[in-house]
């Protein structure tokens, strides 16, 4: 009985692992698509940044506000870098 339970729990865990990996692959593919689009549109974002942004949008952040913040951040960062280089 205990062996069966162990076996079933092992199976379940194996299934979970396989499904998780499948999900991750799918997510990766989706992100690649978005990354490709951003490359064409010359957004200047890498995959990690894109993942964060997409996650924030999925959680309900307004894209316009987010874009404003991103652009502001970029510009401020450039200014900061220029100042610090000097």
């Amino acid at each position, binding site marked *: 009985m205990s062996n069966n339970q162990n076996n079933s729990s092992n199976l379940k865990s194996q299934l979970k692992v396989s499904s998780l990996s*499948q999900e*991750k692959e799918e997510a990766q593919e*989706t992100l690649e*698509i*978005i990354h490709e689009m951003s490359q*064409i549109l*010359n*957004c200047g974002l890498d995959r990690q940044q894109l993942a964060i942004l997409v*996650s924030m949008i999925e959680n309900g952040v307004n894209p316009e506000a987010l874009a404003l913040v991103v652009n502001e951040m970029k510009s401020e*960062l450039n200014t900061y870098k220029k100042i610090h280089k000097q």
Partner: protein
Amino acid sequence: MSNFQKQREQQFEEDLEKFIIYFTGFGSSQKNFEIAHKYASSNLKYHTFLDPDAHQIEAKFQDILIKLQVMSRPDTADYLNTLFQELKKRKLKQDYNDIPHRILGLLLLLSSNLIEHNLNREPNKNILKRKQQDNMSISSIESLKDWKFETSSEEEDEEENKQEDIKINQRNENVREIQQKTQQNQNLISSKDQLPNVLWHMSFNTKKSFNEFVSSNDSSIQIRSSQLFLSENQNKSQEILKKPRIINMITNERDVVIAVLYSFLGLQSELLTFSSGQYQLTDFDVRHMSHDSLLSSTQKFLEYATIVCHLKKPLNMIQKPSLLNIEILIQEQFWLGVRSILSEFDQAVTYLLEQSIYDEKLCQQKVDRSITLMYLGQSLQDWFVIIKQINLVAQKISTIEANNGTFNSPTLTILYNLCIQNSLQPQHNQVYLQKLFLYALEPYIKLLDKYLDYNSTITDTFENLPIFLQSCSVQLKNIGQAFQIFQKVGLPALKQIQFKKNLIMRLCEVSDTSPTKSIQTSLQYCTLSGGYKFHEPFTLTKLKKDDIIIQENESYSIKNIKNPNLIKVFQKEIVKLIKKEDQNIQNILLDYLNNHLQFIKLHKYLRCLFFFERVDLMQQFIEQIAESQSLARLRAIQNTIQDLLGKNFNFNNAYELQPQLICQQNSQFLLSHKSVNFKIFLPHPIDLIINENSLILYNKIMQFLLFFKNSKLHLQQSQVNLKKRLKNQLSKFLHFGNQLTHFITNYEYFLFISIIQVQTDLFLDKVNKSLSFQEIINNHNLYLKTISDKMFLNQKSESILEAIYKVIDIVQNYPMLIERVTTLDLVDQITKNIETMRIESEFTKMKDSFNQQISALILLFDHYTQRFTHAPEIIECILKVNFNQFYK
């Protein structure tokens, strides 16, 4: 705060921290991190932006695509569009429906220098291909947040892409092959959808596709090679062959046959089964096909024909019969057979035109009649359009060199057998299909017989048909003259056999109860003085030899003939002679009658004269009686005269008027006889329009109008005479005469102007505007029907017609009464007084009767107009006809 909101808040904070770390590179312990965090947090939480509009984003995206296309980067535009479409298919977090649009909106807002960036950049198309082949579903990208992505440069990406390209290209070749196969299968399956819808209303007994046929029985295809194509069209054919669309429209021979049969024969239930390598015909059912469906299916049939005609390729070039090539072969063979049939059709039509032969026997068969009737509804122009198109196809196909007369294709064999089975004359078995058309065209071929050259065919000369139709309408414009023709031509029609026969029978009065007496009377009438010789047309040799001993070429005295049967025969022979209008016999008989007037009843003598149309003799006789001033004798024959010559014959005027006038009057009187019918011979094709039924209607209308006109004429005459003779006296007669004249005049207006003139104008307008012969015929029938209905000559309006006749009878009796008044001077005083009293009483009765009849008639009109509101002319007539009301 709810748990969901707390989770959300927590998530947001986490994302924000990561956002700042990834975008700024600041550590969480740094002051700049806090500032950035505060800035981002406040702007993201407390912004004033509206929710993103998916439509606006989509529109902006489309603008970007257009921009890329304008930049001569259509590939990039397509790729971008494809990526976005792919993104939309992915399963993202379901909190919002438009996550892909939101993501796109973000990317669009973050994009910069689109033009410069994409000028030198080539899209990486491998991503999509990989995804298509794998067909995997997608989950949220949230799971990728924690992954660490390698920040690779563009060069590294390109190297990776190249390696991926090599792998993908190998996969693509395999995919292409699979796709082609699936496409072919789809095309074959979906060809049914491409065929006209009309075919798929039919029920198929079996549905074997061509593929099954080919795969199962390759060897059963018996196709002879033959040169079917013209070299000049070879390039065209190759181009067309490359396009699978056209060929897939006709996937199997059976569909082609169905289309052709449907077009030719109007078959709706289908018939062909394929078994053991042969096509078989199951049921041959002909059903009614509507005009529109016939035309549409014929047009589609012709489209197929024109398409197939372009599929020209020498058969010897085909080495391995592939699926498509076999189709072409079979189609060609089929069209060869169709061509031969079409050429025969043309030949048959030409033959018929030359010979003017119509297979009437076949028309009598019920089956063919139903087919004929099916097509008879088509208008002439439509039929000729169809025939022209078919002949054009025949001409096109005729340029193909091929075997003639042999049916290599099984379907052609089926058609051939069909012809044999269903044709009723074996020698014309191949012409059966054409005959179906010909029966429908029969009435029109009659037309063509007269107006086409016999050496030409329909294709050459049917263009004259519109000209002919125009001339037809010109002829019909003269239809008003036809009424006058009726009058002139109809007079000789008085010689009716039945009429004569009745008179003769009355004259002879052979009765079975007292044959001896009847013999005597008949002898009085018909015997001649002793020793008279009969003329040659009458021979006693026609008598039965058993009855009497006959000696040929001897003269016989009728007095000596005592055998009643013989007398009957003699009388019959007399009738025959009279029917043959032997003037000699007529004269002889009349001479006899004149010589034996004292023995002959006066009225019978008059009838005899009337029968022989010797109006002059009748006039003489009447004059004689009038001269004798024997009123008794005049009264004795008065009824007869009135019956024969009309009620308005004036005895006193018999010797005043010219014989010609009397003849004219008499002819009018004769025409008023209701048994008179006009017969007119009309040239073809007018006889198609004015057929027997319309002639009956014409006669009906004419009889009524003539009767009416006659009454009016004599009323007018009597009024004139009354005014001449009695200027100051008998004003009440004049007044009543005016009443009658008022009625007659207004009713005449109603008949001739409101009804006939209006309807004739409408009819002529329709004729001028009509587009087909059938339309003219229909309009003519409607014209006649409308007139007869409006004149109350139909069965429904019998009551009204009776009332009208009663009024007109009064109109006819009135002049007679006037004449009696005027002849009072001729008699002695006692008779005059008696006659005056009689006349007064009759006049009062006549007047009352007239008033009653008029009011009854008006009531009937009124009732009619209430039932049928479309009778404004009757309302007008009612207003005018009532004298007392009119002149109030």
